[in-house]
């Protein structure tokens, strides 16, 4: 474990103390020091603003990438999952038709402004709806409550 020697510790405390004094200094003192050093405050403001913007942008882009990756992983998962659906187009269509007949309340989910008639649904639509119902755990529900 590296240790700081006594001189390093002393310099550290001194520098940290100077940093604290910067925080506590009046704006007039800060401006006076900048003027004495010949600092162009406008140029420096651009530089420091650039550092802050760039850090913020990099962070937000990383979050965006993470969100996109999570979304894509979820979509891939949907496609790769075994849904145990009928193998034929007509079989899938019959299954969905049966589900909607037995559970008319699902019609609102499937039939949208885009798909007003069952006959207009493509096989892709049918498969997608069946998958969604399966994921939601609605495909295996009994049509009517069972009685003992």
């Amino acid at each position: 474990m590296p240790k700081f020697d006594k001189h390093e510790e002393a310099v550290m405390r001194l520098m940290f103390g100077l940093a604290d004094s910067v925080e506590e200094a009046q704006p007039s003192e800060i401006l006076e020091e900048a003027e004495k050093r010949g600092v162009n405050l406008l140029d420096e403001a651009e530089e420091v603003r650039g550092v802050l913007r760039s850090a913020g942008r990099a962070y937000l882009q990383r979050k965006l990438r993470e969100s996109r990756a999570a979304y894509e992983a979820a979509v891939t998962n949907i496609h790769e999952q075994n849904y145990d659906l009928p193998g034929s187009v007509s079989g899938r269509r019959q299954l969905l038709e049966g589900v909607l007949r037995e559970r008319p309340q699902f019609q609102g989910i499937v039939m949208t402004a885009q798909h007003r008639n069952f006959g207009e649904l493509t096989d892709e639509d049918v498969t997608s709806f069946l998958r969604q119902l399966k994921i939601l755990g609605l495909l295996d529900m009994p049509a009517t409550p069972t009685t003992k």
Partner: protein
Amino acid sequence: MKKPAGRGTQEMCATSAEVIAAIESLSAEEFHRLKKFAGFRIRGLGRAAMGRDYSALLSEAVVSTLQGSEGGLEGRKWAKNRVRFINHLLGAMRSISSHWKEAFERRGTEAEQLDWMQTTEDEDGNVLRPSENLADARVDPFRSCAAKEVLDALDNHFAADEDALLVIDAKKDGMTVPEMVAGLGLTEKKVNAAMQRIRYFVEGLL
């Protein structure tokens, strides 16, 4: 707007949009103050800075604040109704640099990746590695100027400035301004004036 858990109900934590807006509204004097503060913290870290410069510390403070704005447990939350944005950033930098010092003492010289540094791609698909922009620790100007030499330079420069020498010694011992006023017989005005002279000299030294 989110209320952080465990804090007063009156305390409103800023959203990421508010953090971005606050960055854009900082004044030139505040940008200068941020850079100065970060510079002294980095110089104080010495070897523990591991090649980081003021911009790395400032960047980490912003990233941490944006993380905090998401409402989770990570990052530092800016209580925008209670704390000015610049004071929040100064506090974040103080905390982050102290953490870097502790991490250095714990892990030794094992290189650690900066939290905000992630490989990214630009719009043209070029891979950007921020670590490539890291200053080389071996050529860090402060490292080449040993701590003892800094202390000697201060002693020599302020040999005829008794107030500054007292303040330097007090700061080396970690004393605060009120402690200096109470213990050294200096007025607050004299302490602050000495501090300003020391800051000016140290900035020119490095």
